[in-house]
């Protein structure tokens, strides 16, 4: 390999107590497409933001063309020929393509000359790279795929020789993604260096020459793409963690508690989030929903919990039918016996500024014994919280402490305790052990199984394959808003699930 286009050496970055990037080194080859793969939260985007000057690294060195450089801001990165296409486009919706193109590269205090020059330059770029866009179109009127083209053009317009794309396909249709890869191939032919960040195996295999794998802030592997395969990458991404052996009896399945029939969800912009989801959840079983995050699991939980009404199909929960005409709401679902541990406890499951005792009744605050004669019963709430803390070993055992003062694991235990306290008929759990330490993971898993054995119907959504494998009696795999496979828990293995999750294979 000649002098690499970019070298990162020992990059380290923490946000408060979160160690996002841990001493990462990598070298990007000139004129090739390099992939960086890893699960959400593995540190890929943070690493690239450091390279682009958006964050400052706590330690480490960046070299461009073999020379050490200081990145104090995007301006420095641009000066060194580095351009970034962000996951969330940095485009002004109300501006035209041309205006977006020249923002920050206007060539003088008047707009007109800069715009004229940009128009000519745009024509040249379009010719060279086959990227055609109407320069006078307003961004808001363009499709997402076209907007991405504008982002790429913006970067090329600034003279970038190194192009970083952060999860570029997250917002694209499969056809648009294919088109993007053709564009990237053309760029490579013209000598542009491309760095592609993604969590999708298919894209790494289809588009890159070399791939780096990140896990939990660390760089764990480097492979030539032609010498590796999706199975190996899936394993590297997920990691061989200590397999959690969950001793559990075979399930005693009872009646159907929750049935979804052809559920669909389309957002206000017309993007299909859930597509024809049918599933059954019986008393006494744990159903696991596996999938790489962002494939509709979040939305499925929201619909099942009554937070978002379905746009199509129906949902029957303990005898109540919910559909577009007669949507449910979270309070009604709770009355029906559905408890919900949300995926993101900080944003949904608790109020950071509230005392732990207050968080311990969120959603149940209007019910007795917490609320009697229109008043909250403080002592009852406190006693309830103390009981929950005792049972779930929440530390420190202080109901009066602010919820945000607890560690992630203890917050999660508190939320879980709250939702399990009323012996719900259906328990929906999103990412039960995200950000939770090993000891607490085991405890939470045991509680979920206990709940199943007591006859509760449990649905677990998790991006941790190990977790799904050790907990679930039945596993459903989601990909692109659909359920693409179902496997019995006892017969599932990581490889087949990994492939289904990556959309590579349907069962």
């Amino acid at each position, binding site marked *: 390999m000649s002098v690499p286009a970019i070298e990162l050496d020992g990059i380290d970055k923490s946000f408060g107590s979160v160690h996002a990037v841990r001493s990462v080194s990598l070298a990007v080859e000139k004129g090739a497409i390099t992939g960086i793969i890893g699960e959400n939260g593995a540190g890929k985007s943070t690493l690239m933001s450091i390279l682009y000057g958006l964050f*400052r690294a706590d330690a480490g060195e960046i070299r461009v063309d073999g020379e050490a450089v200081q990145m104090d801001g995007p301006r420095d990165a641009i000066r060194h020929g580095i351009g970034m296409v962000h996951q969330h486009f940095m485009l002004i919706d109300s501006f035209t393509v041309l205006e977006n193109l020249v923002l920050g590269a206007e060539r003088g205090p008047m707009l007109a000359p800069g715009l004229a020059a940009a128009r000519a330059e745009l024509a040249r770029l379009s010719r060279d790279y086959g990227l055609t866009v109407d320069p006078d179109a307003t961004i808001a009127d363009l499709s997402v795929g076209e907007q991405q083209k504008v982002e790429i053009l913006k970067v090329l317009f600034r003279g970038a020789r190194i192009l970083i794309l952060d999860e570029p396909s997250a917002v694209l249709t499969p056809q648009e993604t294919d088109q993007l890869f053709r564009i990237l191939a053309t760029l490579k032919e013209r000598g542009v260096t491309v760095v592609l960040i993604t969590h999708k195996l298919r894209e790494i295999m289809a588009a890159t020459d070399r791939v780096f794998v990140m896990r939990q802030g660390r760089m764990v592997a480097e492979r030539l793409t032609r010498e590796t395969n999706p199975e190996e990458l899936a394993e590297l991404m997920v990691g061989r963690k200590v397999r959690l052996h969950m001793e559990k009896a075979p399930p005693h399945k009872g009646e159907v508690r929750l049935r979804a029939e052809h559920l669909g969800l389309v957002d206000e912009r017309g993007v299909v989030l859930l597509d024809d989801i049918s599933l059954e959840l019986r008393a006494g079983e744990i159903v696991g929903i596996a999938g790489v995050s962002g494939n509709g699991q979040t939305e499925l939980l929201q619909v099942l*919990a009554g*937070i978002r009404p379905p746009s199509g199909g129906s949902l029957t929960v303990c005898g109540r039918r919910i559909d577009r005409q007669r949507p449910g*709401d*979270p*309070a*009604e679902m*709770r009355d029906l016996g559905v408890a*919900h541990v*949300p995926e993101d406890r900080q*944003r*949904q*499951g*608790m*109020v*950071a*500024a*509230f005392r732990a005792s*207050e968080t311990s*009744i*969120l*959603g149940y*605050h*209007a019910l007795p014994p*917490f*609320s009697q004669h*229109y*008043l*909250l019963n*403080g002592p009852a709430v406190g006693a309830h919280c103390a009981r929950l803390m005792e049972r779930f070993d929440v530390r420190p055992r202080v109901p009066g402490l602010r919820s945000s003062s607890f560690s992630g694991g203890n917050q999660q235990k508190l939320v879980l305790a709250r939702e399990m306290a009323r012996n719900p008929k259906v328990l929906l759990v999103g990412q039960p052990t995200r950000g939770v330490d090993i000891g607490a993971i085991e405890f939470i898993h045991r509680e979920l199984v206990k709940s199943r054995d007591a006859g509760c119907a449990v649905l677990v959504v998790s991006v941790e394959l190990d977790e799904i494998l050790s907990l679930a009696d039945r596993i459903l795999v989601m990909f692109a808003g659909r359920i693409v496979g179902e496997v019995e828990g006892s017969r599932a293995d990581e490889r087949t699930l990994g492939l289904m999750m990556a959309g590579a294979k349907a069962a």
Partner: protein
Amino acid sequence: MTRARRPLPAWADIVLLPVVNVALAFLIVGIIVRIIGVDPFHALNLLIVGAIGSPESIGYTLYYATNFIFTGLAVAVAFHAGLFNIGGEGQAYLGGLGCGLAILALDRTLPIWLMIPVGVIAAALFGAAWAAVPAWLQAWRGSHIVITTIMFNFVAAALMVYLMVNVLIAPGSMTPQSRGFEPSAFLPRMGGNALNLSLLLALACCAAVWVFLWHTPWGYALRTMGHNPEAAVYAGTNLRHMTMLAMCISGGLAGFVGVNELMGVHHRIVLDFPAGYGFAGIAVALMGRNHPVGIVFAALLFGALQQGGAELAFDIPQITRETVVLIQGLVILFSGALVQLPRPWLQALFSFRRA
């Protein structure tokens, strides 16, 4: 890079930071008073004597504080719901109108023990109704509540001028004011010339707001919405209904200014009685950290300033009552918009002490 500083201890955050913020406001006023050519300490002395030097002045201080408690609570309740109600001025105005209309209609028929509650309730209803419109527009039509409540202050003022000049003016009167109320609508005085039973109503409102916010399921849901709307949805709260509830309570509280002013003092409907209390409520709520107890203390301070400022203006001709307005503005600036300004200084101080 600046070196990372330790966060402030909780007591410093709750007590010290607000005190420093208010002290900064007073410091600047002191400098301005100095520039004017008056010894600030002499002025401060006169101000304190004017505010609490005699039973008479204490009575006035408490009477002013009553208004500040109402508008402070109004801002605080909306604030706990994550809403910024700067329409207290208009809601107070309309509250007075409601109270006055009820009295003009009924004061010749109802006995005092019925007339007073009816007047009070009418004030709350009108204040709430005036706040309900912006609330509805925000909850259902998505218009920004800050802008609509501002605009509604002006609409309220125009409406009142029209009504007073054209409709409610007492026959034969040269000034735009209604006929005098019958004594059945006079709130009993609590000594002095202005202090009346409204103070008890204000304290009752403090207690009620405290109970409502921290000891009822609705208050719980309201605070949840203010801190984290997503969690409120998760908990089953209808955000639109909660917005309406919060703003109606807020408007009703502001409307009680009309009770104190009209039923307590003027005994007729007059123009311009809200006199900035609605805006000052923002300062009171910010200083009182949106808690009823804090609001009572902040309201007492502002009431004392109002009364002491009037006495001060009387004693020193170079200084006017508006000094108090200036202080209010500075308090809002320092304990609201620039609240973070002294934090680094205090952090440095604390780090230094520990090191």
